[in-house]
């Protein structure tokens, strides 16, 4: 039986040398990851968590979207390691051959944790209107809040593929007209064309009672 605490101590040593920029090629850390994830040994995962937390934290600080996220690093560190745990526990570990691949995956989890948060902040920022009180008139009915139903209704109201692409770019991607021109040069020559199409699209969407019901927005 493997002595997890001895293995963890050797891995911690290896990782601290790695953090100082010295590349090491022992199998101790890889082995510890294998015990933690493939064999689901909770003492091994506990050791991984403690050993790699400083590295994960450095990655959080390095990520370009971290400063704008305005959230504690602790939160992202914990989310990253938890994502990693759930993504690889009990499966998929045999696809890794080297510690560098495991580290890359862990780094990916840092990115995912930050981007997941970033998407939420963007979505919030986007639907904030100047007058907060008008938001109070939006009756929220969770079972009706289905993006797919809304999108299907929009596709019915805007049968032309080009209009659908515009609605998707504006509402699902939150692109500005200048970005839409760049993105779909075959559809649009300039931003003026987009503005004039957008106001017609907005009217069609606003006037549709069924869509307003899906959006849970009353007329007044």
């Amino acid at each position, binding site marked *: 039986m493997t002595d997890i605490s001895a293995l963890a101590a050797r891995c911690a040593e290896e990782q601290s040398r790695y953090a*100082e920029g010295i590349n090491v090629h022992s199998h101790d850390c890889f082995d510890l990851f294998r015990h933690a994830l493939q064999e689901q040994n*909770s003492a091994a*995962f506990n050791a991984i*968590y*403690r050993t790699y*937390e*400083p*590295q994960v*934290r*450095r990655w959080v*600080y*390095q*990520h*370009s979207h971290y400063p704008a996220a*305005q*959230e*504690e690093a*602790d939160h992202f560190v*914990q*989310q990253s*390691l*938890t*994502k990693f*745990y*759930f993504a690889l526990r009990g499966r*998929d570990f045999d696809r890794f051959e080297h510690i560098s691949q495991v580290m*890359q995956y862990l*780094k*990916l989890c840092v*990115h995912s944790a930050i*981007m*997941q*948060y970033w*998407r*939420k902040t*963007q*979505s919030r920022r986007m*639907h904030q*209107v*100047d*007058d907060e009180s*008008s938001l109070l*008139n939006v009756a929220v009915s969770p079972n009706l809040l289905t993006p*797919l139903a*809304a*999108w299907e209704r929009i596709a019915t109201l805007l049968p032309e593929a080009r209009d659908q692409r515009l609605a998707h770019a504006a*509402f*699902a*991607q*939150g692109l500005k007209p200048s*970005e839409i021109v760049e993105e779909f040069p075959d559809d649009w020559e300039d931003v003026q064309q987009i*503005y004039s199409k*957008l*106001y*017609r699209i*907005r009217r069609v969407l*606003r006037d549709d009672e069924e869509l307003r019901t899906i*959006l849970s*927005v*009353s007329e007044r």
Partner: protein
Amino acid sequence: MKNLSDQQISALIDGTADAALKAQVAANAHLQAQLDAAQRVEAALHRLLYRWDCPTPDALGEYQLQRLPAAQREALARHLAHCRRCRDEVALLADFLATDDAPPRLALESPRGLPLLPPRWDEMVLRPSMAPYDSAWRGADDDSSYVFEAPGLTLFLEDHHNEEGHRIEGQLVTEETSDQPRWSGALVELRQDESVRTAPLDEFGEFTFDNLALSDSVTLRITNRDGETLVWSRDSG
């Protein structure tokens, strides 16, 4: 002006309307109401549809690392062809993965001191539902029990103290039995000052931490595979 035209409404929403029009709307309750109604629809569209059909950041990452099965990979490539936001994320990830891993002696301090954004959306805060039977959290010889609640969830904590330190036993119980599997296997993180410990939540929602030296500042987080997090913090002695 009796009513705003569709064009004017659109310009006001896009922020391209001129100052004169904005002033006119601000001074006229009827025009303002017309604009508000349009903005409600606009806000609801963004709220409901923003990135609605985008793959998760995890899926984009698996794509970038070429870990997706062929069918999923093709579907994702089709999405990337028409979604600039996702292409930007993939490019950002490629840059991030390519940055040097560990510049020696990189300071571990936060590069900024910005205020936190309340509330934290992915976390549910556990609140004490009753006073502990024994108010001592640390240093006491007696055992203490705590009960915390979050919507639909109750966490029972017992702190046993002996010569080897504290043993924390916890159990997370869901109000609905059907919710229990969602929390089974969740990861429990106990953070104190510089140290951190983890334990998995078993099928009965139970977990244990042994031989702990409890300090004044303790944060307990329980995260399930859907990324939902329960958090409880204790900051003072």
